[in-house]
């Protein structure tokens, strides 16, 4: 036999090292999928450049002249949030179901790698991408568009990003868990993020928009995330620009997402057919 009893039992590899390796592995996979690279990294950058080119010299805001603030501050912050959301929510909702359909998740589940380390690696990689994205956007904002950063507001900006990124990663995992196939999950992710971005102060300010547009935006966490982060770049707001109500709202969505993800997560591919596969997976999970 290969593992004789006299041999001293080899130790398990350390969790930190495994998590690090899994994060690197997920980043490498991401880097090798051109579509993921485009939607996650390039699209927000393109939007930033286009929107600044068209509206860069305008101001946004409601009411008196003193409450108006430059669009470049608005767009850079809003699109940095958009970039963070594509790196977490869109990315995870796309990539995890692809790996599930390919049978990659199921194969990993045959190995002694703890489940939480596989999932943790995927989440960590998306968080790293999100942070990278935000840094790229803000740097471009400072260098190309004269973005002003107010030191007093930096703590609120960082905490807002942390809460938003964590919550949208959880929501991405929830979509990945609930939607049976990769193509459907990709459609769900894009069909939720893109229209929402229009009513969530990302591509344009909805301050003067009809009431239903405002209410629609208020129901979902993207507007709260964008607005909270934009506040930290808004020169008309005095002080640290903390927004505990918005952060709590985003976190609430995140917790719901995490609960759905953890309870509904599936490792098995659901097969090719839509309806058939859903019934099939129902049969699987009923056992």
């Amino acid at each position, binding site marked *: *036999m*290969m*593992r004789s009893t006299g041999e001293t*039992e*080899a*130790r*398990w*590899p350390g969790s930190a*090292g*495994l998590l690090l*390796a*899994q994060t690197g*592995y997920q980043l*490498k*996979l991401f880097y*090798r*999928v051109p579509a993921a690279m485009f939607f996650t990294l390039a699209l927000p950058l393109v939007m930033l450049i286009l929107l600044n080119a068209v509206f860069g010299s305008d101001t946004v805001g409601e009411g008196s002249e003193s409450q108006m603030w430059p669009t470049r501050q608005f767009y850079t912050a809003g699109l940095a949030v958009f970039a963070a959301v594509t790196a977490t929510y869109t990315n995870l909702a796309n990539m995890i179901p692809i*790996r599930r359909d*390919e*049978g*990659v*998740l*199921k*194969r*990993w*589940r*045959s*190995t*002694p*790698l*703890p489940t939480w380390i596989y999932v943790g690696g995927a989440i960590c990689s998306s968080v790293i991408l999100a942070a990278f994205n935000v840094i790229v956007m803000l740097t471009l904002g400072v260098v190309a568009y004269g973005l002003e950063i107010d030191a007093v507001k930096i703590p609120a900006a960082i905490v807002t990003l942390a809460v938003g990124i964590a919550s949208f990663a959880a929501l991405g995992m929830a979509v990945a868990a609930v939607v049976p196939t990769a193509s459907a999950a990709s459609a769900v992710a894009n069909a939720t993020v893109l229209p929402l971005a229009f009513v969530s102060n990302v591509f344009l300010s909805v301050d003067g928009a009809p009431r239903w547009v405002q209410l629609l935006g208020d129901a979902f966490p993207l507007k709260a995330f964008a607005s909270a982060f934009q506040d930290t770049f808004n020169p008309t707001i005095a002080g640290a620009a903390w927004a505990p109500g918005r952060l709590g709202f985003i976190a609430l969505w995140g917790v719901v997402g995490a609960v759905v993800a953890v309870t509904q997560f599936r490792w*098995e*591919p659901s097969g090719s057919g839509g309806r*058939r596969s859903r*019934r*099939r997976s*129902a*049969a*699987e999970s*009923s*056992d």
Partner: protein
Amino acid sequence: MSVSEPMSPIVVRGLRKEYRSKDSSASGTVVAVDGLDLDVAAGEVYALLGHNGAGKTTAIEILEGHRMRTSGEVKVLGVDPGDGGRDLRDRIGVVLQTSGVEPELSVAEVLEIARRSYRSPRSTSEVIDVIGLNDKADQRVGSLSGGQARRVALGLGIIGRPELLFLDEPTTGFDPVARRSFWDLISRLAAEGTTVLLTTHYLDEAEHLADRVGVMADGRLIAEGTPADLIRSFGGSTVRFSLPESEAVTWSEVLQGEIAAQVSGTVTVTASGRVEISSSSPTSDLSVVTAWAVSRRVELPDLEVVRSSLEDVFIRLGQDR
């Protein structure tokens, strides 16, 4: 045999698996595995043989811990795979029916990341050597041929130095050369002491690789034994010949006349017009045929006696049901 034999790496008693019926119009359940008993001894290569839908994947994936069973007892390396954790998964190797290897990574990369999760893995270079992909080590898995990609899946199955290896249809879609070298590889692993449970619907594969074969149909084992045993008890030998193109003899004479009355085996006529007598006493049946031919003055130029293959056993078992 009793469940209290601690040494067998695989012990299965009365395993049953029902799926909720996929077709909503049909009521009830699909019984995929229906009272399966199985013992695989340490160091043994055991082949589960059966047609598509026989329940092979369901059975092997229950043993791997991927599916839950409806009822029955299952012990894999002494533990219930349903709640076997990290420790069990460190000691088994799994090659699923669908490989599930990341197409974007190179052969060396998938092996390297996989080996990290095991306690005492083989080195990546050793595995690449074993699976014979030295010249493809840096090539993306997605660009490999089907057989090469399957070898990568096998490499992932053995990289943790498993005591017990599960292979679900390891060579489906291989060309004959690739199949041969895959067999050699499994034989080498078996010679090192690895216990192997594989499923296949290729009879030659089972005959070549397995110490013991279990023939599965409709979720049950309908025959079990060494390939030679199965052939002996279900197959025997076949006496076969073609009828000459002559007006002197007719089919009915062969099938209903002297020959059919006197031989001990069963007489069948193949689609190509050959008469086959499958028999457990080929010597006397052959003498019946030759006596008949001599008396009728007909020459049977392609008369032969062949030992049955596992394929004949398989076909016969299928007919009996």
